[in-house]
């Protein structure tokens, strides 16, 4: 069939079908990629994206490090989606509080939960709540201008920081703590954090993990960046890598290359150290393996952290499933700043939504929430808080696929028309909630960019939601 006739027939057929109304909760990558895929593969579907903050984009705005601006280019893709006719953005709406999931299900044919992981796993050890101990999530939120972390005021007056965890978030924090200030000055890091880092006394950062080099979760690009960070020296103990070259001979390429880079760095830097004076390099960072934190030790006045007592471990098993078992030996590591980077964690949103408290995810099959027809999930709340943009993109397309299939097969009954925002808007009004539209976000965006211009920054983030709302006249 010739192309023009096919398009015409398709349009005629489409115009006979009712328009499905889909709701997405969360405006980070998962929410936007799910919306994008539905809009692309369904000519009539209308997608409304709800977000609890006034501003969109989730972790792309609040998680990606300030010195990784290229990763944030994906915002252009999401902006294109938000501006399409059949997509609407409603910021400043907290689902589960301002409107329930049940109310959304009444107003929409399908609801997709893409609200991510706003909490973090806890160490569960004594002293965890001492001053000077922070979750990595809060620290990243602080330097990225996440409103709830704007008053963190981390104390950077000590020389040694200990980051617990061997993932990319741990590396991001180490890099932000040790980067030359000039590197950070022209980024979108908040003014307040930049000022704090300018006064920072931190010159040594340890990243400690319970398991060994073969179990590190960070990726090679980020590790290489840290190794090459000007003004710093990596401290890797060659003894930690004995025999590993052989162990990864036949490993999958990513693990092999990553391990080889650590081995090379450990051997090179060890040789260099023997030759050069250490005084030349003011800042250091290093990896410590097979150390499991047992207690955060307080200063004499009991107020702040002075160190962490670690249990030395040995590994049982190998590869990803290796387990760290205490050997009985202990070690104390002196430090004045502890960052716990052991994983983000999702929280239950609404009693109407089943939640797996063991894994902190919404139980689902291919993105269809178990036992609740018409409810779906995508992103970290579906799979757990791991993965980079491509992982979330593929996952979100997969959930969108389930929605599209259910529309196609009549599992979602679109013969009953739904009001969408028509209904939700009234509910919100009656509760005194005024949503922020995408064009209103663009006003906030323009203001941030203008404020950043004078300082040579891509933007100066507004960290107070009230200020954002005032700016748009709410």
């Amino acid at each position, binding site marked *: 069939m010739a192309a023009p006739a096919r398009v015409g027939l398709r349009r005629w*057929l489409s115009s006979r079908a009712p328009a499905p109304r889909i709701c997405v909760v969360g405006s980070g990558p998962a929410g936007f990629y799910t919306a994008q895929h539905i809009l692309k593969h369904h000519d009539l579907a209308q997608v409304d994206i709800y977000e609890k903050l006034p501003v969109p984009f989730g972790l792309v705005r609040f998680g990606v490090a300030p010195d990784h601006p290229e990763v944030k280019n994906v915002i252009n893709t999401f902006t294109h989606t938000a501006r399409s006719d059949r997509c609407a953005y409603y910021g400043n709406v907290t689902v589960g509080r301002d409107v329930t999931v049940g109310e959304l299900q009444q107003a929409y044919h399908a609801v997709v939960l893409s609200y991510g992981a706003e909490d973090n796993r806890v160490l569960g050890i004594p002293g965890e709540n001492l001053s000077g101990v922070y979750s990595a999530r809060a620290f990243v939120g602080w330097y990225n201008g996440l409103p709830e972390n704007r008053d963190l005021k981390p104390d950077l007056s000590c020389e040694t920081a200990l980051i617990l965890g061997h993932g990319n978030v741990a590396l991001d924090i180490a890099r932000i703590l040790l980067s030359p200030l000039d590197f950070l000055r022209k980024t979108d890091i908040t003014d307040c954090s930049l000022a704090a880092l300018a006064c920072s006394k931190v010159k040594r950062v340890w990243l400690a993990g319970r398991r060994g080099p073969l179990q590190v979760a960070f990726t090679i690009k980020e590790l290489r960046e840290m190794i090459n960070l000007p003004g710093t020296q990596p401290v890797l103990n060659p003894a930690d890598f004995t025999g590993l070259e052989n162990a990864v001979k036949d490993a999958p390429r990513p693990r092999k290359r990553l391990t080889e880079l650590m081995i090379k760095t450990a051997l090179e830097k060890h040789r260099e150290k023997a030759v050069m004076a250490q005084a030349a390099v003011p800042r250091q960072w290093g990896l410590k393996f097979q150390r499991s934190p047992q207690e955060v030790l307080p200063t004499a006045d009991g107020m702040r952290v002075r160190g962490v007592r670690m249990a030395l471990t040995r590994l049982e098993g190998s590869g990803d499933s290796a387990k760290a078992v205490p050997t009985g030996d202990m070690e104390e590591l002196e430090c004045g700043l502890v960052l716990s980077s052991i994983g983000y964690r999702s929280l239950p949103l609404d009693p109407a939504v089943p939640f797996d408290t063991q894994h902190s995810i919404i139980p689902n099959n291919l993105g269809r929430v178990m036992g609740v027809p018409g409810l779906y999930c995508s992103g970290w709340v579906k799979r757990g808080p791991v993965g980079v943009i491509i992982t979330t993109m593929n996952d979100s397309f997969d959930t969108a696929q389930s929605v*599209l299939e259910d529309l*196609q097969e009549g599992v979602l*009954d679109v013969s009953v028309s739904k009001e969408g925002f028509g209904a939700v808007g009234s509910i919100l009004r009656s509760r005194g909630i005024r949503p922020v539209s995408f064009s209103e976000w663009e006003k906030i965006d323009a203001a941030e960019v203008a404020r950043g211009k004078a300082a040579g920054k891509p933007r100066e983030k507004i960290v107070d939601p009230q200020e954002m709302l005032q700016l748009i006249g709410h």
Partner: protein
Amino acid sequence: MAAPTGALWRRLLRSAAVRRLCGTAAAEEPERAVVNVVFVDSAGRRVEARGRVGDNVLQLARECGVPIEGACEASLACSTCHVYVSAPHLEHLPPPCEREEDLLDTAPQLRVESRLCCQLTLLPPLEGAVFTLPRVTRNFYVDGHVPKGH
């Protein structure tokens, strides 16, 4: 109620092979030779593209409507434009830089023939090259056909 129009639509289109010929070689540019390549999307659909020497492969794909994402906009900060290059043509490509190799390590279903196509430029030896998208997500046909049995 299942949409009868949907079923009719699927019957009408199932046999139609989608073959699109498009690309950047429409304008007359005699100093830049034409290079014909093929993109195969994750649903198995082939798109024939006529580019010219020097064209960026990701850009050509997107101009031809091939559903490849380029989240970081060709700045070597993601792996969403991951493709497999047909074996005979792979060796004619300049090898990946270290950063591309590092990013490929994060791509699902990595293979020997994997490349990030935002880093690839058309050259004469790429005539007839096939760039295949990895099948990571379940297929969805543009015409609404949904293959069963996933």
